[in-house]
């Protein structure tokens, strides 16, 4: 490759490899806030929460994927994102996401005293909300 200052990005889901291209920058939704990665970033591993992965520039152009949960490995020249699901905003089924959200709220209300149930419900709600949000963005 002539242009070596490009980041190689890869987005992998259990179904297939969605993206394997170069980009100028990637934003990933780490658990504790969004993280933007440029070429030459220090090596890092992070848990990703529900949110949007955004690619900028390079072969990928501007692309957004709404992901559920996953991981990211950052190396100076390469970023690999593992996600349990990844959808483009226009692929999101708004009605289904809304249904999930309602289901989540219902779980939350029924959780009683069980902290584990609250955690579960929160995960469902957060995922559904993030999906709805990125669907609205388009």
């Amino acid at each position, binding site marked *: 490759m002539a242009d070596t200052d490009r980041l190689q990005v890869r987005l992998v889901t259990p*179904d*297939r490899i969605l993206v394997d291209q170069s980009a100028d920058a990637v934003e990933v939704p780490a658990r504790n806030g969004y993280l933007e990665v440029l070429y030459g970033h220090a090596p*890092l591993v992070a848990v990703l929460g529900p949110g949007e992965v955004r690619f900028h520039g390079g072969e990928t152009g501007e692309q957004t994927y709404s992901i559920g*949960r996953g991981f990211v490995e950052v190396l100076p020249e390469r970023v690999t994102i593992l996600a349990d699901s990844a959808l483009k905003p226009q692929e999101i089924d708004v009605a289904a996401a809304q249904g999930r959200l309602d289901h989540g709220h219902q779980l939350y209300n029924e959780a009683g005293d069980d902290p584990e149930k609250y955690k579960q419900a929160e995960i469902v709600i957060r995922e559904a909300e993030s999906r709805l949000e990125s669907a609205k963005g388009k």
Partner: protein
Amino acid sequence: MASILDLRRRIRSVKNTRQITRAFKMIAAAKLRRAQERAVSSRPFAAMLASILDSFKRRIEVYDPETGEIRHPLLKTREEQHVLVVIVAGDKGFAGAFNANILKSTLNFISGNHEKQIDIETIGRKGRDLFRRRFPAARFEQNGNGEESGRPERQQRSGRIEIIGDHPTMLDRITLDDVRALGEEISARYAHEEIDAAYLIYNEFKSVISQRVVIERVLPIIEFGQREIIEAQAMSPEERARAGRAAMTAGVSTMPGELEAAMKVYEDEAKKFGTAEVDYIYEQSPREILDAILPLYVISQLNHAFLESVAAEQAARMTAMDSATNNASDLIDKYTLSMNRARQAAITKEIIEIVSGAAAI
């Protein structure tokens, strides 16, 4: 001796059967190609997850240095007294020994572990049919006031072996949401110490001519990235040869195709995922990362097993239907021969009658 008319009828009927089995074979071949693609495409993800776990384990201790506690409930090992077995069978019959092999392996497993209490969870329509009649179902009762603790309470066991759940339609379309729900349920059961180990019994699909029944331990996770195969039942050489012939006539390649080759590259790279010889910054605490990664690992193993099993089912069906088609052809040949013989005999008889009639004059 059967009359010509009888034989002709029989030939026609066998021909119809052959047409059906041949169609089944071609359908299975088409489905196999799709299932194979999906199974192969899921491999990089599984490999990456395994390698990141492996590297993670080398960097942090499984035991917390301060408290001496193990860091995650899914890593704890206990003496196996209650065991969960997840059985992945097919959706339909007409697949040779596919479902019978699963049943055989399961029963072997059960008799080999006679001192343990075993819960069975079946995947696939045939799985349910095979085991429903053999073992009683587990009974649950929602906890009285409902609001307190949400987990339904298990009733008194009615036998050593019980069926705890079935998922007859899961393999129709494998979606990650379904697999995730099951994986989380299994992890929760393990974390609540309702089970001490979880095993997976399924048909592993290596290639069209190589499938085997595998018993794999999913929980507890002892060695990351290492699939713990307890027992494997490989195909015999004759079965392999038959499968090879079936694949050839159905136009399914037995060699790894382009997709496999491409995936192999990813898989090899995937093995390096998260293992570079550098010091990573971990954004979150070890516990948090383990919390996120371990359930995903279980889910990925289940997903892998389901996809492989679907591909193996189609491959088994293709082989079985190819054998059936060949048998039908043999039968037709045999009947055609007998029919010609009978017809010849009738003609000869008539000639003799005419000749002897003429001689009598």
